[in-house]
Structures are given as C-alpha cells and as structure tokens.
C-alpha cells in the first residue's frame, strides 16, 4: 500500500526549474535510494515533501492525506520526518539534551510550558535512543564538539522521536570517512528497521545504495529518469550516462 504518493510535482525558482513533473509512489517499509548528480533535484524533492519548499504545481499525498502545502511542523506531526545533509542540531547543548528536547516536544503537546523536561520517563527514553543509535558514549559531549558521524546519528535520532512512518535522509553519509560509511549506515538502518520506518535516502555512493536500498529513484534535471531495483537502475543507459558516468563504469569493469 502506498504511503507516499507524489503527482506532477513541479518547483521553479524564477526561470530555473528545480523539479519537473515528478511522479512517484512509495509503499510502506520500502527503503528507497535517491541518486543523481549535484543539482539534479534530489534535495529539492526532499524539501518539497517535508514542507521546506512549497511546490509550484502538483500534489503530495501521505497515507491518503493531502500534505502539499502544509508547514514542516504539521508534516512532522502527520508522520513524516527528515534529517539534513548538514546535521541540524542544537550546538550549545549536549547530545543528551538534544534528544531530550526532541522527546519533550514529541510528548508534551503544543503548549509544553509547565511539566519539567528532565523527568524520569523522558530521561530514560532519551538514554534508550542514544543506545539504539550507538552514541551513548558521547552523552554529555556538546553537539558542536563531536565528529560529523556522531552529529549525523544524532540528527537522525532526533528525527525519529515522533515515531515517524516515513523518514527522509538527506545524504546520511556525507562528510563521513569511507571506512566509517558502512558502519554508520548499519547503525542507522538497524535502528530504523526496529521502528518499522519507511525510508527514502539521498546518496551519492553507489555501493551504499546497492547495499541498503530495495528500490532506487534516479534524478536528472529535476525529474526521475529511472525507477526500479538497484541493479536495474544502475545498469540503465541514461543513469550510466548522466549520473554514474561511463568512464567510472568502464574503470570498474575487469
């Protein structure tokens, strides 16, 4: 059953067309990789679905509900969450406090002015999340002083506190060393599988895409040029030409 249904989605910035007639349907529990060169429209697509940008045309349905022009906070409450290419955290707070504040917002409703944030149930839940994402060792470190990998995990951990049904990850392994990328993705995917979350992730590394995605969307010039299982999309002639690059492919062949 489709959890996300995007029809005829377009976004223009003046004469620049950033998204052009995007049509895609995502089923529950899929893990969808989004690939494309820089400027292909991947992040624009994520920004449109999560309300950061308003589409010029088209519609976005989430679980049968029209969320096309909703503000980000309403979309989050509806059950979609996201992480960012540059992790969006509270730099002056500790890792633990970042997650605790996220939990407080998720649990205390729209006017959380009286109940203390540091109460036993939230503190325990925050510690469990830190454990699940493997960052408990950094619990009391300030968010601005930890590595990019830890910040990425924290960003995603904070995005999951609302127990979203659909999570969009914008380049979860960017800025992380090659050796750490798979370890990072293992932690992320294990944590998300435990929560039964449908995932769309933007990624440039084809090895990561091939290993973790069950389906791939290839973006070029603001639209989807290929959609299917990873192997088929990676072998698609248009994808080879515009995204992966013929030379790179030839180099990779024995």
């Amino acid at each position, binding site marked *: 059953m489709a959890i996300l249904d995007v029809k005829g989605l377009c976004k223009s910035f003046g004469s620049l067309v950033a998204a052009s007639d995007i049509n895609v349907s995502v089923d529950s529990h899929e893990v969808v990789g989004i690939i494309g060169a820089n400027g292909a429209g991947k992040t624009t697509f994520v920004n449109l679905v999560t309300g950061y940008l308003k589409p010029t045309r088209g519609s976005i349905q989430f679980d049968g509900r029209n969320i096309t022009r909703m503000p980000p*906070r309403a979309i989050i409450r509806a059950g979609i969450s996201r992480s960012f290419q540059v992790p*969006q*955290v509270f730099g002056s707070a500790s890792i633990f406090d970042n997650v605790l504040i996220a939990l407080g917002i998720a649990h205390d409703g729209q006017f959380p002015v009286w109940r203390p944030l540091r109460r036993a149930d939230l*503190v325990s839940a925050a510690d469990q999340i830190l454990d699940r994402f493997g960052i408990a060792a950094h619990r009391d470190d300030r968010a601005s002083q930890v590595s990019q990998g830890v910040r990425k995990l924290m960003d995603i951990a904070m995005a999951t506190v*609302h127990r979203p049904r659909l999570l969009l990850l914008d380049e979860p392994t960017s800025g992380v060393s090659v050796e750490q990328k798979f370890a990072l993705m293992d932690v992320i995917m294990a944590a998300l599988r435990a929560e039964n979350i449908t995932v769309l992730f933007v990624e440039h590394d084809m090895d990561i895409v091939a290993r973790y995605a069950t389906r791939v969307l290839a973006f070029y010039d603001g639209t989807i040029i290929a959609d299917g299982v990873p192997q088929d999309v990676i072998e698609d002639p248009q994808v080879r030409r515009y995204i992966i690059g013929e030379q790179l492919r030839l180099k990779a062949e024995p």
Partner: protein
Amino acid sequence: MKRDRTMACIAVVLIALAVGAPLVPSWVVFIGIISLAKGLVVLGLLVLWRTGLVSFGQSLYYALGAYAVGLAYRHTGLTDAFVAVALAAAVAGVVAFVLGFLLAGYRDLFFAMLSLAFAMILYGVLVKSETLGSTDGFAIPVPTFAGFKPGGADAQGNQIMLFVFTAICTFAACYVAQRYLASTAGHLTTAIRDNEIRVEYLGYSVKRAIHTKYVLAAMFAGIGGALVSMSVGHIDPEMAYWTTAGEFVFVAILSGPASVAAPFVGSILFELTRSYAMEYTPHTWHLVLGAALLIVIMFLPNGLWSLFRKSARAT
C-alpha cells in the same frame, strides 16, 4: 538528578528581607520595592534574552501596567493591590499577545528596534493626551490589601506592607519563570537561538514559542510597573520612554541570564549604585553607572551572577 535549590534560596532571602524591613530606614524599603519591581521587568528580559532576543521596548508594558493601575483608580476608585497587579498583568499580556503576532516574526536588531518603536508610540500617546495627564502624569493613592490598609495614616507602615506584597509577587514570578524555563518550552529558549530549523522540524512552531515568551515577559513587566506606581504614588510618560527601556537592558546585562534570581540581585545593586552615585557625585552619576557596566562587561561577560557560580565551583 541534582536538586535545584534556587526557589528555596529565593524564599529564604525574601523572607529575611521582609522580616528586616521594619528595622531599616524608609528609603531602604523604598529602594527595595523599586529594585524588586524593576527586577520583575528584567526577569522577562532574561526569558527573551536566552532565546537570543533583546527587547528595547519593555518600558511599553512597564508603563501599561502602571497606567492600568492609575486609570482603574481614576475611573473605578480601585486601590486594591491584588486586583491592581492582576489587572496590570492582564492588560500587558493582552497587548503583548496582539503585538506578538507581528514581533514573533522578527529577530536580532529588528526585534529590538520594533519593540522600542511600540514603546515610543505609547510614550507619544501619553505625552499628547490631556486625559492621561500628559507630561505630568497623575497621582495614585496608597494601595489597600483586600480592603485593609495596614499602616493606616503611617506612610512607613504602608510601604512595609507594599514591600511584603512585592516580595510575594517576586517569589510567585520567579516560581512561574523557573517552572517555565525547566519545561520543554523553556528549554526551547536556547534551542531556538541555536537552530530554528531543527525546532520546526521537531514539530514545534518557533513563532509560537517566541510569542509565548514575549507575552510572559510583558506580564512580568506589567506587574513591575504596577508595583512601582503604587510605591511612588505617581505615574508619568517617562515610564514608557526609551531611557527607561535602556535601564532594563542595562540591568539585564549587569545581572546575566543564568538564574531567575540574577535580575533581582542586579536590580538591587543598580538602584543602590545609582542612589549613592547621585548622592556623592550628583553631576557625574551617569559616568559612575557607565563605568560600572563597562567593568562588568569586560570582567564578567556573563553578568554578576557568574560570581556566584565561580564561588560555588571554588567550594
């Protein structure tokens, strides 16, 4: 989890001050009332400051609170301090709720200047309005407490009662501020300063959070204005003027944003410094205050309260 003893300490200090009030000269009691009342205005600034917002227009709500008390007396004969303070808080809160829809969309210098603009509009209205006393303002009587005037004709006795009442208001405001700052919304103060995008993507409206803080700060300022007006017995448009607003920002910087008690410590020191400076250097007292602020900014960038933290760490 470490237990926070801030409220217990505030209660002990306020009780000690209230018990000691009859033993000190009347000018000390007067300075005590003014300090605590203005500290309430600064307490609201602290809530905003933690979010990275500085309001140069809290004099708007300070004056609104005072004029609400004065006009209620003029038109209805109301002198009850409890009702007057509630009325001042309500008037300031309602006006802040309306203006907050506009102000919550601004940050940094724009927020500061826009808040100042509203204060100056009120000042202009008060100065030009004969019915509101114009530049002279008007007098208001000694307050009663639930129909009771403890001092009778004795001015000192009435001031002491008003000091006790101010101390109770101060404790109540500190308790509300402390609960608020310990809540999820309170923790959003620094979170918003760090990263507004993340707050929105956690499902909370940044504008709503700022709007709430703005209304809370205005209500504290309104109560402060009401208490000062009852103590001085007179209100005038200077209460809305930018120099009054600047004084609150001055005390906020002097105090630091670390604790709900800090604004009151800063306010007491400010009023004492000003009183002595005016007494001993009547022509250069501004210089003394400026030098004091300069020293604090250079050596205690987090305000006077950082002295308490340093001594707590040392022990």
